């Protein structure tokens, strides 16, 4: 059971189902050794998500809090990015990826995302060739004032490291 009073829970097959119409209806469709009742409000799903936060999430946030102390354009900032970056790259590049179900991703979906990334890169190139200065900023110049602040850098490191973790765990 996740949280007190939560309806998102698992129950062993021999445990009596609570006397609630919604629970009876849902559990009657369930099979196997446990039953997951998913007819829950959004806030209870958030509680369930919080329960899945593990030590790696804590490590990522901890690392982000420390790494963000170093301002961009300094050697410590470069080391703070390259250390986990190279480590995760080495881990991921040499390991095979879990297979996807057939038909999970259509060529159209890949083409669409490629087109969007190409559009972003083309626009970045336009800004770069147009001036690459405060009047003609690339995306990084636009974000520079934001990333000058510590909280934004913490968020940036956390998101970037979370993406790296995601890549390694596929």
């Amino acid at each position, binding site marked *: 059971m996740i949280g007190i009073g939560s309806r998102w829970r698992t129950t062993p097959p021999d445990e009596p189902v609570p006397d609630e119409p919604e629970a009876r209806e849902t559990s009657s469709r369930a099979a196997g050794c446990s039953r997951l009742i998913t007819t829950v409000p959004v806030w209870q799903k958030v509680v369930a998500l919080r329960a899945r936060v593990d030590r790696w999430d804590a490590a990522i946030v901890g690392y982000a809090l420390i*790494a963000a102390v170093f301002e*961009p*354009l300094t050697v410590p*900032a*470069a080391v*703070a*990015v*390259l250390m986990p*970056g*190279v480590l*995760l*790259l080495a881990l*991921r*590049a040499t390991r095979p*990826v879990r*297979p*996807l179900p057939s038909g*999970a*991703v*259509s060529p*159209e*979906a*890949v083409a*669409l*995302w490629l087109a*969007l990334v190409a*559009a*972003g890169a083309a*626009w970045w190139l*336009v*800004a770069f060739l*147009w*001036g690459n200065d*405060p*009047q*003609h*900023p690339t*995306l*990084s110049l*636009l*974000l520079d004032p934001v*990333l000058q602040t510590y909280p934004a*850098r913490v968020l*940036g*490191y956390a998101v*970037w490291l979370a*993406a*790296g973790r*995601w*890549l390694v765990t*596929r």
Partner: protein
Amino acid sequence: MTPYGVIATGFTVVLSAMLATQLLGMADRRPFRPLGAVVHNVLRHRAGRWVVLVLWLWVGFHFLAR
């Protein structure tokens, strides 16, 4: 409109289109798929894996360290 406005609007349009595609993919509207599923598909190939990882490392370095 100033060059700054033109460029900022262009980035906003592209990022909004990416967000819309992501949301439609999460809502399972075909042919849209979430970025994660597409990247996972690319990671299956050795060359694609390297491209994605180097891109990820570059993004981190470019925005947080450079």
